[in-house]
C-alpha cells in the first residue's frame, strides 16, 4: 500500500515536497507514519500521543480533510498533509502557539461559581461541548482564519458556549462580551468545522446559539453588517457563504 506525505524541512529545502512510501501497516494512519519513520526515514516529523483519539495531538489532513491519524484507516495512495492556517514547522508538525492566546481572549473558563444546584439535565447541556480535545481540526478547516488570524474560531467559541451554558457560571455575560469582536459574527456558518470535528461537536450550531444568546442579552446583531462588508474584506465566494446558515 502507498502513502503520500507532504514533507517540509526548512533546514534542507525551503520548498515542500510530496514523498511516496510503501507501507505494510494501514490499520491506522498513525501506524503507517510510524512505519515510514522507523523504516525509511527517521527524520519524518509528526506529533502523536495517546493513540486512542483523546489527546488531540495527531490531527492531520487526509486528501484535504482533517482527521486524527490514530483513528483513521489508511487507503491506498492517501495524501497526508499538515493541518492548515498555522505555520508548518516540520513535515506534519505545525505551530500551536495560537491556542493559548485565543482561549485567553475568549475568557473560556469558569469566571465565578454561582453555587447553584446542578441537575442531570444541566450537565447534559454542556456534555458535548466539553468533549473537545483541542485537536485543531476545526481551526484548520475554517476559511475565516485564512483572512483573519484574530478570529476566535470554532473551538474557542464552542468552549465559550460550554461555559455560557454552564449553570455554575454566574457571569456568562463576561464571556459573551469577549466573543463579539472577531468572534461569533465573523463566522460564515459554512459548517466545515462540524464536518472536521472527530468528537462530533457541532461548532456551527454552537456559534448560532451564542448569537441568539448575545442578541437576547442586548448585544448588537452584526450578522447583516458582516455580510455587507465581507466582500470588501476580500472574502472569496467559493466559501459557500450563507449568512442564514443551512
Amino acid at each position, binding site marked *: 500500500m502507498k502513502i503520500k506525505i507532504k514533507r517540509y524541512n526548512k533546514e534542507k529545502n525551503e520548498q515542500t515536497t510530496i514523498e511516496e512510501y510503501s507501507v505494510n501497516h494501514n490499520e491506522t494512519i498513525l501506524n503507517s507514519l510510524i512505519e515510514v519513520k522507523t523504516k525509511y*526515514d*527517521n527524520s519524518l516529523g509528526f506529533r502523536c500521543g495517546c*493513540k486512542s483519539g*483523546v*489527546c488531540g495531538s495527531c490531527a492531520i489532513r487526509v486528501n484535504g480533510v482533517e482527521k486524527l491519524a490514530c483513528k483513521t484507516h489508511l487507503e491506498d495512495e492517501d495524501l497526508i498533509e499538515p493541518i492548515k492556517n498555522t505555520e508548518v*514547522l516540520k513535515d506534519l508538525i505545525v505551530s500551536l502557539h495560537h491556542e493559548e492566546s485565543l482561549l485567553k481572549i475568549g475568557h473560556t473558563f469558569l469566571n465565578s461559581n454561582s453555587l447553584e444546584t*446542578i441537575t442531570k439535565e444541566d450537565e447534559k447541556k454542556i456534555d458535548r461541548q*466539553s468533549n473537545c*480535545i483541542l485537536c485543531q481540526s476545526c481551526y484548520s478547516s475554517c476559511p475565516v482564519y485564512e483572512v483573519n488570524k484574530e478570529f476566535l474560531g470554532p473551538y474557542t467559541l464552542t468552549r465559550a458556549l460550554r461555559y455560557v451554558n454552564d449553570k455554575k457560571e454566574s457571569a456568562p455575560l463576561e464571556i459573551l462580551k469577549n466573543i463579539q469582536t472577531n468572534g461569533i459574527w465573523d463566522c460564515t456558518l459554512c459548517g466545515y468545522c462540524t464536518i472536521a470535528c472527530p468528537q462530533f461537536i457541532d461548532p456551527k450550531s454552537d456559534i448560532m446559539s451564542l448569537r441568539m444568546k448575545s442578541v437576547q442579552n442586548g448585544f448588537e446583531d452584526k450578522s447583516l453588517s458582516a455580510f455587507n462588508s465581507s466582500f470588501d474584506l476580500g472574502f472569496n465566494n467559493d466559501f459557500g457563504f450563507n449568512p442564514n446558515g443551512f
Partner: protein
Amino acid sequence: MIDVLVIGSGGAGLTAALKAKELGSKVLVVSKTYPTHSQTCQAQGGINAVLKEDQQDSVENYINDTYKASHKLGKIENIKFFCEKSKETITWLDSIGVPFSRDENANIAQRKFGGTKAKRTCYSSDYTGLKILHTLYDQSIKNSIDFLNEHILLELLVKDSKVNGAIFLNIENSKIIQIEAKSIILATGGYSGVYHQYTTNSYSSTGDGIAAAYRAGAKLSNMEFIQFHPTSLEGKNILISESARGEGGYLVDSKEQRFIDELRPRDEVARAIYKKQHQGDKIYLDLRHLGLEKIEAVMPQERKLVYDFMKLKMEKDLIPVSPSAHYTMGGILTTIDAKTTLENLYACGECAQSGIHGANRLGGNSLLEIVTFGKIAGENAAKNSKNKETVEVEKIRVQEIKKEIEEILKKECKTSFYSTKNELGKLFFNNVGLFREKKKMQKALDYLENKKEEIENLGVADKSKIHNKNLIELLEFKNIYLIAQLIVKSALKREESRGAHYRVDFENEKEAFDKISISIKKEENIEILFEEIV
C-alpha cells in the same frame, strides 16, 4: 527568579501550578508536550471519593479498601489523609467547573469500581480525565500561568543534595536552556513506556522525570510494581475502562463462560486473563446484556473506541481483550508533604511513590492522587520558596550537556534504536510482566547488560535542529533503558508475590517483605534496598 518550577503539565502539574500561583508564587510550567496532550486525558472511568457517610460507605471503608489493595505497602497515614480529603478534592474540582455527571437527585453520580463494594467513583461520562484536564487548563489560562511547552527535561541541577533548577532541550529548535528556581516540582508521569507496544499509555510516558530524579540522587521506590489493566483492546493496546465491568460487563472465554468475578482487584483479573490466553483461549468483554441505551448513557466514548478501532458494536458483539501495562505504582519516593529525598524537590502524580497505592492501585485512585498531591506539592513548594532570596547556580553542567547533545548529533548512526525499543518492550511484557520468575527476569537483565555499549553509543539519523523527534525519542529511550534496569533489579530482589508483583517461584506474600523497595544511585551503580514503612 522563578519561585516554583513545575515540570509536567498533566493533571498533577496543572493543579500544583494553580495552587502555587494562588499562594503568590511566580510559577512556570515546563512540559514535553502541550498540556492537553498529557496522559491524564486518557483516564476514563473516574475519581474516587466518599461524598456522604452512610450505610453504603464511609471514609473508614475507603481507607481500608485502599490499604488492602496496597498489600500492606501503602502508608496508613498518607492513605488516611488522601481518603479524608477526597470529598474536599472533588468539591474543589466541581467548583472550578469540572462537569461531573449527576444522579437523579442532583448529586454527583458515583459508580462501582473493582476492589470495593461501595459506589464510590465519581465520573464525567467516560471522559473523566479529559474533562478534569481541560478544566484545569482553562483555569490555568484564567490565572495566567506561564507555560513553556515542548521542552524535554534533561537533568536536574543539584548541588549538595539541593536542587536549584533544571536543564531542558527546546524541542522546537534543539536549544539547551537552564532554568533556575527556588523550588522544583516533578509531575512528569509514569514509566509504562518501558512496555512499548504492550501499554495503554501515551507514547510520551517514558519516565523522564523519574530517570532525572534518580540521576540527581533522589530515592526511588517500588519500581517493580506495574499495574496491568485487564481489558485493553486485543492487539491495539487501547484501554476499555474498568467502568465497563463496574456497570455490569462480563469477562468470558471462547465458550462464552465467565471464569472470574470481574470486580476482583485488577492484578487478579489481569492474571486470570493472561493465564487463559496462554492456554490458547481467547478472552472477551461481554456487554451485550446491558443494552444499547445503558451503554450509550454510561460509556459512549468506549463504545465509539471499540467501533472506531475494531469495527465492533458493544451491544451486539463480543469484544476481544487482553491485559497491558497501564499504571506504574513505583516512582520518586515522597512524603505526605510531596517532598522527595532531595531539598527543594517535590514530586506528585504518577511519577511519585506517595505511599498510596503500594503493590496495587485501585481504579479511580490515580485521578484523586494527582489532584490531592498536586495541591500539596504546589502548596509546599510555594512555602519553601517564600523565604529564599535567590539561588546561585553554576553554568558548567549546561555547557557539558550542550556538548553531549552535539556529540549525539555528530555520531554516525549505525543502528536504529527503534527495533531495540520494540524488543525491550516485548521482552519486559513476557519476562517482567504479569507472571515473573528468576530465570526469565535474569534473561531480561542480561539482555539489558548486553545492550549497554550499543545504547551508550547510539546516534540519530536525523541531524536537524527543528523538531528533531528522532533525537527526542532517543533521549526518551535512554530513560526507558535506565528504568527497565531499576524494574528488573527490584523485581529480582523481591522474592515473594504481592499485588501486581507475582512470582511463580515465590507464590506467597512474605512478612519479611512488608517493606518498600528503594532504588538509589551509588556512585555509578544501582543499589536496591528494602526499607521499613514508617
